[in-house]
C-alpha cells in the first residue's frame, strides 16, 4: 500500500497553486491529505502532481467578517474545533468537528479539504449544509462563491473545476439560532450510519426557520426539507420532534452497503434527527 509516483510542489500563493492546477489536468490540490492519501495508498487516486496548499498563510486565516465567520480552506480542523472565536460565533462547528475522525486526523485535516472531498457521511458537509455556508472557489481566471447545496454533486464529487481550489469557507453567524448535532455509529469515530445537523431559529416560542441536513443517507449530504417543514410555525415539542424525525426518515432512500441496510440507515436518521432536535430543547 504505497502511493503511485507523482510530482509534488508547494506554491507560495493561492494564485500560483491554481495556475499549476490549470496547467495539468491530472494535478490535485493537497491540503491535509487525510482523505486523499489513504486513497493514494490504495492506488485509487493517481494524481500526476500534488499541489500542496496546506500551509499557504492566506488559506489558513480565521476571522469574523460582519455576520460571517470566515475560515480559510486550509485551516486545520483541530484548530477550528478549539478556537474561542469559532465557539463564540458558530458553536455548531466545534460540536460537529468533535465527531470527525479522531483527533489525530483532525490535527492534519482541513476544513476546505473535508468539503471538497464530499464524503456522503461527512459531518462537516452536514454542518455546512445546515448553516447554508458558502465556499469561495478560485481559479486562475475567476473567483466565485458557491453554496453548499450547489457544491456537493455526488459521492466524492463536487462542482469544483479541476483548476479551482476552495480558498475560504464562509459560515453565517446566527446569534439567535439554536443548533444540534447527533450521529449514530456502529463504532464511534467512524463514518456514521446516519447523522443530522440542525439549525433552528425561533420567533418567540415558535420555530421561524429550520434547517436540517442529513448525512450517510444519500449520495451526498443533503437537506431534509420535509422534516424542516414539520417544525415550522410551532413550538419545538416532543411531538413536533417525533413528527420531524419521522418525516426525515420517510424522506430518504439510503443505499445499501457493507455497514448497514437502507432501513437501518433510515432508522439511524430518525434517531439522530430526534437527538439533534432534543439538544435544542434543553438549551
Amino acid at each position: 500500500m504505497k502511493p503511485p509516483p507523482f510530482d509534488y510542489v508547494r506554491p507560495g500563493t493561492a494564485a500560483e497553486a491554481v495556475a499549476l492546477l490549470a496547467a495539468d489536468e491530472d494535478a490535485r490540490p493537497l491540503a491535509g491529505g487525510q482523505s486523499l492519501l489513504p486513497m493514494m495508498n490504495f492506488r485509487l487516486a493517481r494524481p500526476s502532481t500534488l499541489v500542496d496548499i496546506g500551509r499557504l498563510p492566506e488559506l489558513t486565516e480565521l476571522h469574523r467578517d460582519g455576520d460571517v465567520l470566515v475560515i480559510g480552506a486550509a485551516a486545520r480542523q483541530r484548530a477550528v474545533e478549539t478556537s474561542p472565536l469559532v465557539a463564540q460565533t458558530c458553536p455548531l462547528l466545534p460540536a460537529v468537528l468533535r465527531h470527525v475522525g479522531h483527533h489525530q486526523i483532525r490535527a492534519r485535516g482541513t476544513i476546505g479539504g473535508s468539503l471538497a472531498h464530499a464524503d456522503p457521511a461527512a459531518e462537516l458537509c452536514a454542518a455546512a449544509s445546515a448553516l447554508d455556508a458558502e465556499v469561495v472557489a478560485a481559479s486562475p481566471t475567476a473567483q466565485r462563491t458557491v453554496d453548499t447545496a450547489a457544491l456537493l454533486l455526488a459521492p466524492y464529487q463536487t462542482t469544483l473545476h479541476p483548476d479551482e481550489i476552495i480558498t475560504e469557507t464562509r459560515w453565517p453567524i446566527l446569534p439567535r439560532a439554536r443548533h444540534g448535532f447527533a450521529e449514530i455509529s456502529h463504532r464511534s469515530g467512524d463514518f456514521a450510519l446516519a447523522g443530522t445537523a440542525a439549525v433552528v431559529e425561533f420567533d418567540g416560542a415558535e420555530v421561524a426557520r429550520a434547517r436540517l441536513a442529513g448525512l450517510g443517507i444519500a449520495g451526498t449530504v443533503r437537506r431534509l426539507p420535509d422534516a424542516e417543514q414539520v417544525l415550522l410555525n410551532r413550538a419545538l415539542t416532543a411531538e413536533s420532534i417525533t413528527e420531524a424525525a419521522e418525516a426525515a426518515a420517510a424522506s430518504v432512500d439510503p443505499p445499501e452497503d457493507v455497514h448497514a441496510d437502507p432501513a437501518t440507515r433510515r432508522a439511524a436518521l430518525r434517531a439522530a434527527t430526534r437527538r439533534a432536535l432534543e439538544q435544542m430543547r434543553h438549551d
Partner: protein
Amino acid sequence: MTDTLTAVREISLTVNGREVRRAVPARRLLVDFLRDDLMLTGTHAGCEHGICGACTILIDGEPARSCITLAVQADGCEVTTVEGVTPDDGLSPMQRAFKDCHGLQCGFCTPGFLVTLAAAEPDDHPTDADIRELLGGNLCRCTGYQHIVDSVRQAWGRS
C-alpha cells in the same frame, strides 16, 4: 533507493530534537521515512490508511498519522516519535505506568498510544470515559484497553 519514477525533494525538519536534512521521493510516506531512512523503527505501520494509530507521531506537538502524511509535508516541521518521548536513562512516568499496569502485550500498537498520550493534557480528560475517548484513535488488539486505562490513571496520579 532507485525510485526514479517520482520527483525527489530536499526536506529539512527536526526529528526528536535533531536537525535532519534529506532528499526524499515526493511519494515517500512519513512513516517510511522515519523507519527506513532514519532507522526510527519504534513507529509502526499497522494499516497504512489512517485507522489504527500505530504510526502516531507528533507533528509540531500535535498527534498525527505518519502513514497518511508525506515526508515532504513534514518539511520545516518538528517531528517527535516514541524514541523522542523516551528518556535516555530508562522510561518516562507514562512508560513506567504501562509496565506496572501491564498496559501492553505484543507492544506493536504501544508507541502510538504513548505518543498520543505524550501530547495530552490530563486535566482535559478527567474521567475514565474521557481517557477512552482520547485513546479512541489508537487500536489495540491485545489488551482489551482496560490495563491501558489503568496505566494512564496511574501516570496521571489518579487512584
